[in-house]
Structures are given as structure tokens and as C-alpha cells.
């Protein structure tokens, strides 16, 4: 066939994109999931034993890593500096929290089979309409995607169509999360006010306090991160991913070759919010509480700092940043609790000045200089 000659001719110009970093990342993640699971099952006196405390801590970090990937997708590749992604994370968390509240049933302090304790405390007699359906897991799972997705869609619809960009967009996203925080603080909202939702017992019939279930949640978070990574990677490797980078670098030019910039932004921003929602939903059963503090504007800024430190514009960089910074945070807040924010700020400044491409950029540079020599 004549096919062969064409292919031979053109293999020369077909871009050879290395999948090494992706493969390495996936293998490392799988090794981490399996390694932690196995080591958790070792006897406690074994040197490689990973404590249950550590398992839950790592599970929490993994949900942060998912959130960081969501932020990197829109910031690193599309140029939308969202300072409100914690809002989508918290919304996913609240949806999960509502389901977990309903799972308590009549075992609450007031023993009301239909109403969560805080509603009984407020003398409410029936469940508000927006709590309906939250006792079904499938409905909850759907809402974990839909609630953050819908908010992001509406927000993006107005913001991107009126071409709000740059600093202005970032400020509006901060306002969005701040407004939600104030709203969720109100008792009348029906989400437990400043106490939030807590005292969870079971998820899908599994006792959340059991060690095996905690390990299961850690594994679920790891698998979720893996799937989210694969999804984002497939988008970024596609032509759509190149369009995203084109928009980031020269938005107008992208319009003049016929791409609908608003649609691309809207689609990826909505997807990113859904991913953040998944992260929040996995976070809540592991930490056992969700309250309006999760909407705090500072939280969203911290996520951006993780991504910047890890390496904006590389997915594994975002993961590295989330895991690394949070590990450092745990250690630091134990050793010098007052100094954490200063340390984080300092780290951020140092990285932005010395490593504009983050830690991942350092790895890349090392590899390419090795290849050159």
C-alpha cells in the first residue's frame, strides 16, 4: 500500500512527546498506594510500619493534591488564576457532609431519625428542600459533581463572556469564596452554621472510625488522584490542551484563528471545579468535619502557592507541591506553630524568584542538562 511510504515520510515530523514523566508519576503513585497499604498492615513494632494516623494524614494530602491538579489545569494551562477553588472543594465537602449527616439517622444526641442534630437544636420540624435526596449515595455522588460544576458554570458564563481577565477575575473568585463563607456561617442557611457538619459515623455502611475504612478512604483518594491525573493528562496532550496553552499565551490570537475562547475556558473551568468537588468529598470523611472555615479566602490562596512551588504548568508539579508543602506544614506547625505562615511566604518568594517553574522545573532542567551532556 502507498500508506507505508507516507507514514515513513511523516514519522519524521510527528511530534515525539515523551510520556516518561507521566509514566513515572503513575508508577510512583501506585507504589505509594500499595506501599502505604502494605506497611499499614505490618505489626506496629516493625520499622516500616505506617500508623493509622499517618494513613489518614496522607489520605488528606492526596485530596489536596487533587485540588492542586484542578487549580493547575486552569491556572497553569489556561492562565485563569482562580483564587476561589477552595469554594468548589468546600461545596463538594458539604454535599458529602450532608450525606454523612443523614447516615447518622436516629443515633444523634436528640435521636431524631429525620433531622440532623443541629436542625433539632434550631427547633426545625422538617428537612429543608435542598437536603432532600441527600440520604441516597448515588444522588450525593451526582451532586458532588453538579453543585460545584453548576456554580463554576454560572460564574464562568458571566465572567468569561464579558471577558473579565487577570487580576479582576482573581479578585472576583476571592469575593465568591468569601461570600459563600459568610453565607455558610449563618445558621438559617441550614448547613450547621459555624459548627458545620460533623460527628459522622458511617459511609455506605462502613464505620468511618475503623482503621480499615480509613485505609480504604486513603486508597480511594489515591485512585481518584490517579484518574483525575489521567483525565487531565489526556486533555492536555490533545489538541484542546494546545488550544488551552494558546489561550494562556495569546488569547486574542486564538480568537482570530477561530477558537471560541469563552467556551474553552468555561468547559475547563467547570471541569476543574468538579474535580475540586471530588477532592472535597473525599476530604470530609477523612477529617470528620466540614465547616465554613473551608471557604476562607486564604485557603484558596494556599492552593495556588502549592502549585507555584511545585511547578505551575506540570500536573505532577502540582501534586508534588501539594504533598510537599502540606507535609512541611504538618511538621512546622508541630515544631513552630507561629512561624508557619512566614515560612510559607518565604518559601513562595524564594521559589518565585529562583525557580519560576517550581520544583518540577528544577527536575526538568536537571534531566535535560543530563541529556545534553
Amino acid at each position, binding site marked *: 500500500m502507498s*500508506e507505508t511510504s*507516507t*507514514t515513513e*515520510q*511523516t514519522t*519524521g*515530523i*510527528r*511530534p515525539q512527546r515523551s510520556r516518561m514523566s507521566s509514566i513515572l508519576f503513575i508508577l510512583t503513585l501506585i507504589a505509594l498506594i500499595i506501599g502505604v497499604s502494605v506497611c499499614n498492615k505490618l505489626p506496629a513494632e516493625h520499622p516500616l510500619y505506617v500508623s493509622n494516623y499517618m494513613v489518614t494524614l496522607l489520605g488528606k494530602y492526596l485530596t489536596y493534591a487533587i485540588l492542586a491538579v484542578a487549580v493547575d489545569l486552569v491556572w497553569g494551562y489556561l492562565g485563569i488564576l482562580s483564587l476561589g477553588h477552595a469554594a468548589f472543594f468546600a461545596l463538594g465537602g458539604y454535599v458529602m457532609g450532608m450525606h454523612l449527616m443523614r447516615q447518622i439517622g436516629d443515633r444523634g444526641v436528640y435521636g431524631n431519625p429525620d433531622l440532623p442534630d443541629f436542625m433539632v437544636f434550631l427547633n426545625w420540624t422538617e428537612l429543608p428542600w435542598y437536603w432532600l435526596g441527600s440520604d441516597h449515595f448515588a444522588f450525593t455522588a451526582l451532586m458532588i459533581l453538579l453543585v460545584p460544576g453548576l456554580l463554576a458554570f454560572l460564574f464562568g458564563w458571566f465572567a468569561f463572556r464579558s471577558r473579565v481577565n487577570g487580576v479582576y477575575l482573581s479578585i472576583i473568585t476571592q469575593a465568591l469564596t468569601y461570600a459563600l463563607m459568610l453565607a455558610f456561617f449563618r445558621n438559617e442557611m441550614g448547613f450547621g452554621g459555624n459548627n458545620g457538619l460533623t460527628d459522622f459515623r458511617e459511609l455506605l455502611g462502613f464505620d468511618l472510625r475503623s482503621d480499615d475504612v480509613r485505609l480504604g478512604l486513603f486508597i480511594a483518594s489515591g485512585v481518584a488522584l490517579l484518574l483525575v491525573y489521567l483525565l487531565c493528562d489526556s*486533555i492536555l496532550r*490533545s*489538541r*484542546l490542551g*494546545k*488550544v488551552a*496553552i*494558546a489561550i*494562556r*499565551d*495569546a488569547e*486574542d*490570537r*486564538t*480568537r*482570530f*484563528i*477561530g*477558537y*471560541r*475562547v469563552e*467556551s*474553552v475556558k468555561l*468547559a475547563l473551568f467547570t471541569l476543574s471545579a468538579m474535580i475540586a468537588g471530588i477532592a472535597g468529598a473525599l476530604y470530609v470523611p477523612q477529617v470528620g468535619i466540614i465547616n465554613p472555615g473551608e471557604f476562607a479566602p486564604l485557603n484558596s490562596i494556599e492552593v495556588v502557592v502549592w502549585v507555584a512551588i511545585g511547578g505551575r504548568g506540570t500536573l505532577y508539579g502540582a501534586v508534588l507541591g501539594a504533598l510537599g508543602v502540606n507535609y512541611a506544614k504538618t511538621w512546622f506547625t508541630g515544631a513552630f506553630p507561629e512561624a508557619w505562615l512566614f515560612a510559607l511566604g518565604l518559601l513562595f518568594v524564594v521559589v518565585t524568584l529562583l525557580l519560576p517553574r517550581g520544583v518540577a522545573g528544577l527536575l526538568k532542567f536537571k534531566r535535560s542538562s543530563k541529556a545534553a551532556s
Partner: protein
Amino acid sequence: MSTPQPSTSPAVFRRDKVFEFLIPKQVEDLDLSHGTALYLENISVNFDGFQAINGLNFYVNTGELRCLIGPNGAGKTTLMDIVTGKTRPDTGTAWFGQKINLLRMDEAEIAQAGIGRKFQKPTVFENLSVFDNLELSMAGTRKLWPTYRARLGSETLDRIEAMASTINLLPQIHALAGSLSHGQKQWLEIGMLIMQNPVLLLVDEPAAGMTHQEMDRTVELLTRLAGDHAIVVVEHDMDFVRALNSPVTVLHQGSVLAEGSMAEVQSNPDVMRVYLGTESSSC
């Protein structure tokens, strides 16, 4: 009914067959039956009190190569901004063919309808390779899902390779566009424009930063593209305009000052006064 394009095969390159895609595809509504690709009538644009375009009338025939000259600030780039949807005029009408009202469309729609543009300051996607720049510009779907699913077939690869060799960037095909020289970026942007396969090409100062050799190639390329495409070229380099050897429109203070061949225009006393007079010293 829309008239088919002139049937002359694009003589741009030798391998005619591969380049069938270079014959512009007719957009559904695009009606060029009267032989006019672009109608701008009575266009005025005012920027905060400054009249950048003033009652401008400007027509481009299908397949025509037209040079647009005029001193700095004459409104040449603004004219292109209006046609491509970047700037909305205060008054006037802008039609693409008989049926497409450009003033009702946004940038992406206008681009999809078949108007492509090269910017005065070369604008390429610096963090993408030459290959990616050409791939993104290539005519084809602009919808989200098909863009996500798009695969690089051998036909696509052939087109990109041929274009890269036409614009002399084959050796740099996998280099980042940001690493190219100014002249190479100009070439890449021209390549991107042709990959889009528009019916009407607006080319703003293509020769800036090019060597004489590169300019000759650009002249050759533009001349060959004319016929199948309507082209408007803005250029300050008079040698370049002369080499294009086509009708010239002189713009001055936002309206047309003169129209005709280069020789006619050059001998027009108004033009000599406002424009060529200042240039002639350097010629």
C-alpha cells in the same frame, strides 16, 4: 447560490494534489457572486475623541491582491480590527460577500467564516512548537469535543510538513515558536494564516524584520496565493509594495486618499504631499 471559486489549481506549490485544501472552502452563507469579497461603507471609528477612521469606503474583489499604504496612524490596522471584529465602528456597514454582516459577529465567528489575519507585531504561540502553531491554525473543526478527539492523520502531517517547508521552518519544526527570530516569526504567522485557508487574508506589515531574500519569498508567496484568495497587504516598505505589483489604496487620516496602480498613486499630488513626500527622501 454561491459561485465556485476560480478553478485554477493553486500554483502555490508543485505538489498540487496535496494542496487541494488550499482552495478556500465555501462557507454556507458566503455569497461572492458579485465578485466582491469585502464591502466597507461609511465606516467611522472614534477613540475617545480621536477620529481614527472617518467615513471610509473600501472594497476588495474576490481573488484580488490589494496593497494598503499610508503614514503611521492612518488607520490601516484599525481597518483590519474592524473587519476581524476586534473593534466595532461607530457608524457604517461591513459585509463579507453579499450575505455575511461582519458587524454582527465576534472574532471567532469571523475567523470561521473565512477571514484570516496576520498581526502587525508578529503574534505566535511562543510556548508551543512551530508544529503545534501550524496544527492549531489548520482549517478544520473548532468545536470542543472534536478538538479534544482530534488525531494527527498522515494527511494532516503532510500538510504541516509542506507548510513548514514552504515557510522555511522545517528544521525548526519542533522548536518553540518563542525561540525563533523576528523574521521567522513573521513567516510562521504567514504560515498559520495560510493553514487557516481563509477566503480573505489581511496581512499587516509582513516584511518588517525580514531580509531582502525573505521579502522576495514573501512577495512570491503572496502573489501565488492571490487569485484563490483575496488579500489585503499593509506595508510601509515601498520596494515591497512595488514588487507586489498590484492596486494600491492610500489611507490618510482614516479615509481613502487615492486608489490606483503604484505609479498612479505615486504621481498623485495629494499623496506626494501627505505621504510619499516624506518617504522619498529615504528612497
